[in-house]
Every structure is written in C-alpha cells, then in structure tokens.
C-alpha cells in the first residue's frame, strides 16, 4: 500500500519534470509578426518591383519642413509665418542656428530616404540573380539610383559638403569623411551616366508599370543639374540637348493649371512627388503637406476647405520684378494676394496703380483674407477649393508637387549656351522664347545671360530654391542682399545640424 503510494508520487513527479524540459526547442521560435528579409523568396521575381515601389513611397512622402528649408533663402521668397518659427525667418535672413529643429529634421528626412534607395537597390540585386529578365532588374536599380540622386543633390545644395553614401548601412557614416560639394556633384553626374543605359526612353507619364516613374530623361535632368552646379556648362548643354531632342516634352499650355489637378503627370514634368486621394471622398490618402505654404486666412469658394499656415511668402522684390516686366500669367499663377499685401505694393510710388486683375480673389474664386503672418502666399503650391475632391478638405490634397519640369530644362539649356557651351538641339533664343511664349510674352533675340536669368527668375520663382542656387553659383550676392538682408559667400551653406554633429564626429571636424 505504502509502496504503491510512493510509486504513484514518483511517477507523477518524474513525468512532470520530464514534461517541463521537453519544450526546449520552443526557445528557437522567431519573433512573431515580422517579415525577415532573409526569408524573402528572391526566386519570386515578380516581387522584384516591391523594393522599388518602397523607394518611391519614401521619396513621395516628404516632411513639410524639407521644401521651405531648401527654398526660403532666395530673393524670390520670404519666410512668412511672422512671429512663429523665428529661426526659420532668421534663416531667410541668413542668421543660422544649427540647433533649430528644421535643419536636423530635413537632414534626417533626406538621408533616411537615401538609405532606403540603397536598400531597394540591394534587394533588387538579390532578385536579379534569379530573374529571367535581368534588364528589368537593372532598370529598377537605375530608377532607385535616380531617386537617390535627386535627394543627394538637394542635400548638397543646402549643406555643401556632405556624405556620399555607399550602402544602406547608416553606420558607414561613422567612418566616412564628407565629400566636397564638387565631388558630390561629379558623383551624381557619374551615377546618372551609370543609370542611363538601363532606363526607358519614355516620358514619365508614358510609363504604364509605374505611372510618373523615373525615365532616362529624369536621369539626364539630374545630370544637367549636377553639372550646372559644377559650372560644367557643356555638360549641362549635352544633357539638356538629349532631353530636348527626344521631342517627348512640351510645355503645358495652361500655366495656371500646370500647378493644379490638370497638371498631374503633365507632359511637361520630368519628376513629381505624387499624391492622391484616389478620387474617394474619404479613406486612403497620400498627400504632400501644402498647408505649410498656403495662406493662413481665406474664404474658400467651397466652404469648409482648410487654409494653410502661411510659411511661404513671395517677396515684394519678386512681385515688383514681375510687375515691371508686365507679367500677368506667371504672376497671377505664382502669387496669392491679400488686400494688405496689395496695399503694401502700392505704398511704393512706382506701383500706385496696379492692373485690375491683381486682387485678393484668385482666378478660381477663392478669397484670400488678410492675415498678419504674411502678405502673400504661394500660388504654385495652391489648389483651388473647387478642385478638391468633394468630401476632402485638406489644403492642396490630391495635388502633386512638381520636382523637375521641362521649362527648367529649357532655361538651363539656354544658360549653358550663353555661358559658352554649344548644342545643335536648340538655340538659347529658341529655348527662352518657348518659355516666354507660354507666358504670353514676346520673343527675344540674342539673349544675354542676364535675360536668361531674369527669365528663370520669372518662370521658376518659389520653386526648390532654384533662384538661390543660381545666384550663389553666379556670385550675385547683391541680389540676395535684398530687403535689408546682407549676404556673403560664407553664408552659402547651412551649418550642419548640431544633433548630427554630436552623432558623427567627422561632421564636427568638417564644420571646423
């Protein structure tokens, strides 16, 4: 009896202890709800497009601060937002604060996406091994390369000497030294040459697999931009000639609507940050934050449409420049006037009488009210309330942000020629006059550098800091020293963000 009792106890005990130790292999279970990259089936080559779409997704989603930071220092535009984001306004006046959050944030936004494009290239490379059509893999890699090129170009324009990344691993930066701006631009030009053979000779809007995606001409455009920064004008002329000679691109006839819904994937555009509400009144939406650039107070034609934040104000200098030229199409498209702003223009005895079309009502019927943050807002970044998809109210939603357009290509081409380069694709006069014609202006002949730059100022004002880069490149510091500002060469680039200097000692060394 007693023995039996013991036996039961011991057997139970043994079973329990054995049972507990039988589950050791459970410790090797991987983390749940995670897709491990190493488990990706690279033989499924139809998935090869996924990393590329991922790169486009990162490229399309930009922080609102990126664009104003890149663009605000030109004489075409002021900080606006008076009394708020004071260091943004200070930056507009060339007083830099490396502790200011926008510097760090923009730096991170751009570099994070650059690493993502590297990662996409690396992933596609792995698919390529199994791809029956390696040309497709090469094309995708080339596309990611072009996206990376645009991002790195923006970084170097703002900060000058920056890191040239080589892989998707950010820790590479810890041992890397910054490259000079010229090295960066030469690198970009070379990168585009590498990408070119693999890219389709299409207009972005002709692409079916990735509508609006990168093509050969996007790469050529970035190559031209990089060479322009290098003042290698023949390089600019060669790249732009190829774009022009393709005959693929034309200027959108309706300049006003180029920057609205009808201008989405226009035949003028070589690169766009794409947005969409998919035609639905609610639900999924991919948007670019235009609100930062919009007017703070308005009475929209369609009630309930959101206003903006007022952080981007076309300068009086630019408006007067346009008035002097008798511009209507481009001025009306580029500037949203307020009554206060109009009154401010009229304070100058030269402009006491203004054309009747200058009013605080936009051509689309939205009324811009006075607000104390700014006198004007950007028209190129404004979407009329009647173009919003019914049900949507977010300012500028469903509108694309144009990154590179054909008008810029034409004017780069013209400038390169007047700077001494040669091309058989198109003359400088023809390039400038094509742009002028759309703006309703008469032809010029024998254009000078000054005329080309004025045309650029008029055509591309408020876009991507193009004006600032041009003036810096041409050493026209007096142009940047406007409305009380004082610019000098040492102010060309922003100081590195303190947060990055703390993380990357080499950056600190480069700064000093």
């Amino acid at each position: 009896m007693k023995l039996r009792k013991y036996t039961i106890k011991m057997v139970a005990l043994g079973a329990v202890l054995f049972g507990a130790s039988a589950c050791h292999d459970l410790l090797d279970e991987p983390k749940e709800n995670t897709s491990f990259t190493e488990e990706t089936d690279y033989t499924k080559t139809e998935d090869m497009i996924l990393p590329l779409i991922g790169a486009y997704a990162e490229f399309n989603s930009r922080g609102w601060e990126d664009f104003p930071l890149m663009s605000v220092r030109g004489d075409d535009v002021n900080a606006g937002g008076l009394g708020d984001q004071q260091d943004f306004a200070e930056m507009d006046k060339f007083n830099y604060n490396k502790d200011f959050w926008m510097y760090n944030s923009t730096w991170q936004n751009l570099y994070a996406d650059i690493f993502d494009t590297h990662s996409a290239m690396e992933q596609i490379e792995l698919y390529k091994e199994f791809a029956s059509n390696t040309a497709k893999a090469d094309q995708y890699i080339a596309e990611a390369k072009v996206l990376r090129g645009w991002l790195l170009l923006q970084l170097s324009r703002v900060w000058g000497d920056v890191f040239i990344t080589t892989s998707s691993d950010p820790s590479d930066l810890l041992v890397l030294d910054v490259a000079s701006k010229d090295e960066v631009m030469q690198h970009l030009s070379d990168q585009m040459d590498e990408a070119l053979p693999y890219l389709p000779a299409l207009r972005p809007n002709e692409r079916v697999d990735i509508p609006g995606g990168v093509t050969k001409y996007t790469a050529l455009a970035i190559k031209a931009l990089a060479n322009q920064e290098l003042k290698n004008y023949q390089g600019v002329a060669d790249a732009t000639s190829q774009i022009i000679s393709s005959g693929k691109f034309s200027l959108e006839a309706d300049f006003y609507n180029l920057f609205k819904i009808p201008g989405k994937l226009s035949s003028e555009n070589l690169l766009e940050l794409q947005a969409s509400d998919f035609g639905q009144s609610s639900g999924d939406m991919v948007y670019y934050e235009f609100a930062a650039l919009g007017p703070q107070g308005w009475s929209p034609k369609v009630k309930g449409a959101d206003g903006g934040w007022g952080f981007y104000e076309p300068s009086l200098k630019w408006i007067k420049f346009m008035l002097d030229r008798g511009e209507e199409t481009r001025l009306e498209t580029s500037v949203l006037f307020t009554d206060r702003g109009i009154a401010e223009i009229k304070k100058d005895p030269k402009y006491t009488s203004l054309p009747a079309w200058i009013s605080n009502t936009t051509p689309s019927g939205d009324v811009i009210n006075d607000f104390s943050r700014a006198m004007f807002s950007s028209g190129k970044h404004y979407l009329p309330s009647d173009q919003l998809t019914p049900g949507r109210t977010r300012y500028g939603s469903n509108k694309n942000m144009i990154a590179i357009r054909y008008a810029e290509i034409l004017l780069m081409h013209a400038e390169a020629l007047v700077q001494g380069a040669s091309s058989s694709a198109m003359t400088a006069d023809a390039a400038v006059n094509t742009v002028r014609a759309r703006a309703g202006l008469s032809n010029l002949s024998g254009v000078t550098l000054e005329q080309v730059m004025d045309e650029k100022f008029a055509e591309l004002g408020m876009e991507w800091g193009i004006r600032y880069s041009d003036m810096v490149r041409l050493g026209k510091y007096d142009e940047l020293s406007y409305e009380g500002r004082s610019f000098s060469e040492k102010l060309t680039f922003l100081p590195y963000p303190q947060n990055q200097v703390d993380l990357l000692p080499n950056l600190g060394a480069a700064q000093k």
Partner: protein
Amino acid sequence: MKKLMFLFCFIFSVTSVFSQQNAITGNVTEASTGEPIPGVSVIIKGTTSGTITDFDGNYTIKAANTDVLVFSFVGLSSKEVAVSNRTVINVQLEESTELVDEVVVVGYGQLKVKDLTSSISTVNSDELQKTPAGQAMQALQGKVAGMQVVSSGAPGDSPTIRVRGIGSYPGSNNEAPLYVVDGMFFDNIDFLNTSDIASISVLKDASAAAIYGVRAANGVVLIETKSGKTNQKSEITYDGYYGMQVAQNVLKMANAEQFTTMAMESGSQTAIDNIYKAMQRYGRSRINPNVPDVNTDWYDEIMRVAPIQNHSLSVAGGSDKATYSLGTSYFGQEGILDMKNEYERFNLRSKVDFKATDWFTIGGNMIFSNATKYSQESSAWSMAYWAVPIMPVYDELNTDAWPTKYASAEHIGYRGGQNPFAAIDYNNRRMKIRKVLANFYAKVDVIPEKLSFKTSYNHNFTSLNNRDVALPYFISTNFKRVDATLTKRSETYSNQIWDNVLTYDDSYGKHKWTVMAGTSYRDEAYDMLTAQGVNFPVDQEEAWYISQSDLANIPTTAVRDGGSRQYGISYFSRISYNFNDRYLVYGTMRADGSSKYQEKWGYFPTVGAGWVVSEENFMEEIDVIDFLKVRASWGRLGNDKIQASDGASTTNVVTTSLGDILYSGTTTASTFSSLKWEVTEETNVGLSSRLFNSRLSVEADYYIRDTENAAIRVKIPSTGSSVLRNVGVIRNSGFELALNWNDEITKDLSYSIGANISTLKNEVRDLYGQPYIDGGSAEFRQRSMVGEPLMAFFGYEVAGVYQNEEQIQADPVAVANNLVPGDFIYRDQNGDNQINDDDRVVLGSYFPNFMYGANLGLNYKNFEFSASLVGQSGNKILNRKRGEVIWTPDLNMDADLAVNRWHGEGTTNSYPSSAALRKGWNQKLSSFFVEDGSFWRIQNIQLAYNLNGKDFFGTKILNTKITFTADRPLTVFNYNGFNPEVANGIDRQTYPIPATYTIGLNVKF
C-alpha cells in the same frame, strides 16, 4: 446571526474523531482582555485530528488521558496542555511577541524573517487600505526605503515604480519591477483591488530577487491575495469609502493683462496685432482699456471636483482541512478633467485550499477583474496651458461653429484654434479591461513535513477592447474635424506559467536547512487587431461600430494586426542553511531560457550570509539589543523586459500613390537589433536589529547594483531612427535606513513613529568605448555620459541676463551673436570666449538622489490616528511646457514667467525678456528650462473611530470602524508646474495629482 455563524463554522470544521476517548470541554480566552476567542484550533499533538472553538470560545474534543492538546490562533502564542485525566480544560492565550517567527514569502516558498540574508520590505493590508486609490501600489509611496513611486493622477493609470533606481535604459516599461501575484507574473497590478491583497513584499536586492532570474533585474514585488486560515471562524468584512478629489497646486497661468504685456514687449507685430484683434472681437476691459475684455483661466474651466469610491465585501475562514477566502469589490473613480474620464472596476475572487488526504493538498485561486476606463484626452492639459487667456470659452459671434459655439484663437490671428474644449468634448475613449487570473496547484508531501512537491499552473488571460471615437465639429477653418472616425482595437494576452517545485526541509542537531529545486515553463502570447471606420451615425452611441460606418471608404492602411509569442524555460534551486540560529548561509541559482533574444540561455546565481550577533554569548550582557543580525549578499539578475530583438534585417510594407493608383511596396531596414541578456549584478550589505524590548526596529542596507550589457537605444546617424544595442554599464548605488519605534504608554494609549530614508546615485560607468550616447529629442537633449547619470539633461548653463548695452559691447559673445539686453548670458565652460556646442554641460538628472518617508500612529481608546509624509530631492524636471515655445510663440505661458520677465535693467538676472523668449539663442536647452523637482508632501492623514461592541439603541454593534482620510492634502515644491511627480522628468502634459478626502466604513461580523 450567531447561529448562522455557528453553522458556517460547523460546515467547515470537518472533524473526524473515532477512537474511544474521553470527551473534554473547555473555553479559550485572550489573556489580556479575557474575551473568548472563536476559531482557535485545538489539535491533539502528533495527529491531525482536532476541532475549533465556537463563537463563545467553547470547544469539545475527544482525547486520551495521555494526549497533549495544542491550542493555536493567529497572532497569539500557541499553548500545549497535557490532558492528565481532566475533562475540563480552560486556556488563556497570550499575544505573540516573538516577531522573529514571522515568515515572509520569498518566491517559490517562504522563509522566516530571522533567517533572511537579503533585503525585503513587506507592507500588509491594513497599511494599504489607508490610501484611497484604485491602484494598490500607490499606497506604497514613502513606505519602502529605496522604492520610488511616481503617482499618476489619471483614473485607472498605474503609478511608475522604481526599485533602487533604474538599471535599464528607459523605454517600453522595461524599468518596471516584476509583479508576482500568487505565483503569476504581471507587468502591473492595476487590476487588483487593494482589498484583495493580504500583503505586498518588495524584494529589493539581488539576493532576494534572483530566484526570479531573468525577470528580476528591476526588483520583484510579491503580492499575496487574501486567503483563509485553518481553523478560523468565518469572518465577513465590508470595507468601503466615498470621497472627493480636488485638484491641488493648480499652476497659475498668465492672465489677460500679463499676457498682453508679454505680447506688447515681444517685438513681434503679429503678436501685437493679435491683441488688437481680440479687443475688436471681445471689447476692451473697463479696468484696463489696453487689455481685451476677456480673462479666461483655462485650468479653472477644464477641471472639476470628482468622486472616488470603493466597496468590498469578503468572507474568509477555514477548518483544519480547508481554507477559503471569497470576495467581491467595486471601485469607481472619476477624473478631475471635466470630460468623460472615469474608471470603474468590478472584481470577484475566490481562493480555496483543501487537504484531500494527509499527503495531498490541492487548491485553486481565481480572480476576475472587469474594468471600464474612459481615458482622458491628455492633450487637454497642454492645450489649457497654452491657450491664450484673451479668448473666451464660448463665442456667440462664431455662428459657423457647430455643435457648440466655442471660441477659436484663429479668429484673433493665431495659427491654431487652441480651445481645449474641442479635445474634451469631441473625443470618447473607452477601454474595457477584463482580466482573469486562474491558479491551481497540487502539493504532495512525499516525506511528511520534510520533502514536498508542488506543481502549480497559472493562467492570466487579459482582454482589452479599445474604442476611440473622434466626433466631428467645426470651430474655425483650421480647427475642425470633418470626418468622424472610430478606431477599434482588440488585444488579448494569454500568459501561462507552469511551476514544479520540490522542497526539502530538515534539521540535524544545530543544523537546519531548506533545499528547494524546481522548473518553470512560461508561454506568453499576445494578439492585436485594429481597424478604423469613418462617418458613422455619431449621435447614437449604439451605432458606434465600424459596420455602421461608410464601408466603401474604410482606410485600408488603418487595418492592422500584431502579435507576439514568447517562451521561457527555467531551472532554479535554493539552499537556506542555519547553524545554531547564529550563522546563516543562503544561495540560489536560476537558469533561464528565453525565445526573446538571440542569446538563449542566461544563468543567475546568488549567495548570501548572515550572522545573528545577538545570539552570541558575549551579547547576553547587552540588554538594550534584543536582536541584531548583520548580513551580506551578492547576486546576478536578468532583465527580459527589453523589447524582443529582431536578430535579422526585416522588411516592412509601405504604400504610395503612383498615377492615382494605390501601390504597395516594401522597405528593408538594414539596421536591426541583436541582443544579449541585460545582466545586473548587485552587492548588498545590511543589518536588522531590534532594541529596547523590541520597541525600536532598525533596518539598514547599502547596495551597489551594476547593469552590464545594458540595452541602450543608440541613434542611427542621419536617419532619425534608433536601435537597441548592448553597449553600457549602469550603476545604481545607495543607502537605505528604516527606523520604527512602537510603544504602549498605558493600556489605552499607544503610539508608533517610523521614518525611512534612502539615497540613490545613478551613474553610467561604461559605454563600450563611446564618449556618450544621445537620447531624448534633438531639441531637448538628454545625454548619457560615462560618470554621469543616465539620460541626463544636457545643455547650456545660464549665467545671467544681459542688462544693458555696455555689457553687450563688452562681451565678444554678445557682439558676435547680435544679442541685446534681455538675452541670456551662457556660461563659457571652456573659456574660449565663444559660446558653442562645447559649452554644453550636464544640467541634472530626473532621478531623485534622496527620498524620505515618515509616519506617525497614535491609538487612544477607540481612536486611531495616523499620518505619513513623503519627499524627495535632487531630481530635475525639464519644464517642456515652457520649452515648447521653440515650436511656436503663439501660446500662453505661466504667470511666474510673465511676471518675472526681464523688462529693463535690474529687473531680473534669471528670466529672459519677452522678445528674448522668441529668439533661438534663448531657446537652446539650458538650465533655465531645467528646474528643481524636489518636493515634500503630507501623504495621508487618517482618523478612525472603533465602535467595538458598543451598545446602540439596545443592540450590540458589530466590530465597526469609521475612518476619515485626507490623502495627499498638501504638497510643497518650487517647480513651476502643476505637479512635481513627473516619471521621466519631462513635463509636457502631466495629470495634476488631486487631494482626496474620504469617509470610510469597515464592518466585520
């Protein structure tokens, strides 16, 4: 009633007496009072047969003449009486003074307090019940030396608990201690009602906690729920209170006049224009026509006095074979934020232990907790801080607004609408929290009283159902919500633990030992599903379902799920050896396997030794010292609260639009975490003593705790993201002292005084070659540097304020930076005559380096009075509410800042001018924004009156106690905020901690 009671006793006192013996009767009374004691166990020595006394203290038992009867009752000394041919044996039991025989739970068993070689603090239910709070841990504030409790005022939210500093880089709750409720592991115990708890023990040092190995690095808190006792008469207890919470130390904000002055001095035309716009819209004040005729005190508008109540009913008792404890409780608390902000919890519990045979015991314990929490909209607090005082709550001119005509700051020129009532009125956040803790065990006595085996299975099932409703409204163009959104989120946690423990207890001569060995298997599963609907019928709450929403437009990207599954296997063992009650040796070893990290196994040993000096012969002469033990211990612990590491590169799905088509793509992160165990090593030395006839007790400890391979969030350069890496060594060290004095002056008057202090030094010892690791946000930098506290605030030191132009001209720094009077002078730390990033220094840490608590108890006749006090010093708080002026200066500020601003030479040398406040130079993180967080507080005052056995209108009143409590009635601090209790030291929107006044009733029958 008496009969009913007797019936209860009868049912549960299963007696089995068969042998031919004499019937013995008698009565048991308490020696000091002469009152009869019901429920005393009367057992024949050496057998298991016996009985218990009835309600009048009488018993009947059959026993042989040679038998010895053992009388025992909790809290009283046991007495053995030989039968010796008697048939009537009356016994008086005396109060037990032998505190040394107290036992304490130590994890997978218990030990005698006098045998401990480690540092354990226990707080019992009487002490816990004094604090009217939904969370039992709140009651521990100031009670346990070395434990920091940071309260949260929001209903249903748990306080932050830190045992002996933090050894782990703060993140996803990985600094919190492990809670073990009757054997089950928990991250917090907010589902328990204070009245469910019998005791809370804090295992502070490694030696005590190491038996929990991998989970123990941040300390272990053991919770025993209430259980019945053998041979105890049934006791029915009602315990309840009702009270009110009143906001304390409400921060004074700048009023309309002060705000206007600040705006006028700001130098910003926009700020000035906005004042005029407010005057145009709302008129000019008649008292001061230069100020708008509005003066809104936003805090006053959004707060209310809110009720709090708790009611619990429980029954406990036991026979010699079975014990039981059952109870139910209700807790309800409304928040002091004037919105649907409340917490209600209904609990049921039952615990039954049954001795099935003389070698087999089985038991079960079940706690069901059903709570509903309506969360606050926390942004209301910061909005109330920032909303300008020159705007009213309601604005009749705002005719476009619906459903309520709230005012919007947009109408007077500001960018945002600011009115906190949008957040308060148009959000509804409901969380249903249901938790079941089930726990069953079987215990086999393999060799009676010596070798036993216990297997226990615990299951904690938690279901969280969250419903977040954002209602549509329009106040102004950019202050509206067009689409009503409804977010539902269901989460379940299913955690299981299966423990098997073998315990061997024996002695030989002067040697006594307990040896324990066991295994534990853990399985933790988590599941989550969330989805969002838009545009559902907002006016009917019954239609707040995704199925009732606009189904064609459910955002696909808002549908998400998640889950995790983790396994753990552990082997552990403990030896506790005692020689002659003088020399104590203790050791445990635990091996833990976890699926969470790439390194699967961790080993956690500990050793301890104690010397009971007072047992030595040479101590006999010293009468003052009743008991003195010195002890030392060392142990290693693990921390697996660190988030699971991926161990490999992962791929995520992203979506974008290309040609107005929604595309899905993937991004692959090349940086990933691969983690080892975070290991903590701790050495503790201490002493325990009782002096002056045990009236004074002293506990003192000194510890050094090093966390190696600390998983620290390392920023990935240039990307804004970060990754966990084992790259640091963090040391916490400190001294703890607890003193308690008890005395009885007369039979009617007794008192107790207690105090505890603790120091803490938190220091980063090593960063594996890196000079520092940055944390916090880029604008509010927290830096971990070798030799400094973890996550110290890092910035510029303000040396003063420029007073005049001469001073500016004399200082090259001021000239170089275009400074003007009213701007800060920063200390040039390296003396290079310029202020740059090299001049940044550590500005302080959010860890208090000194904490203290004190309590006083007074009993006079039927009155009981108690009071307690807590405090801390040495910690800093980042006043981020002020600091956020860097994002926008559109906002209001606290009155202190407005009144003390620099506004002319000699006005102040520590505050900036209004214009300076808007300048980047003065917005750098500096000592101006980092403030002293010291405070002290009267934690609790309670007055109780006992109506024991009083006659009331001719009937005898039951054991009844009425209490009046004031909880946290007074807090004293200098910090310019609402509340100095900020867990992570960054004050952005802290819930104010209210004072609570309650009246309570406790009835036992």
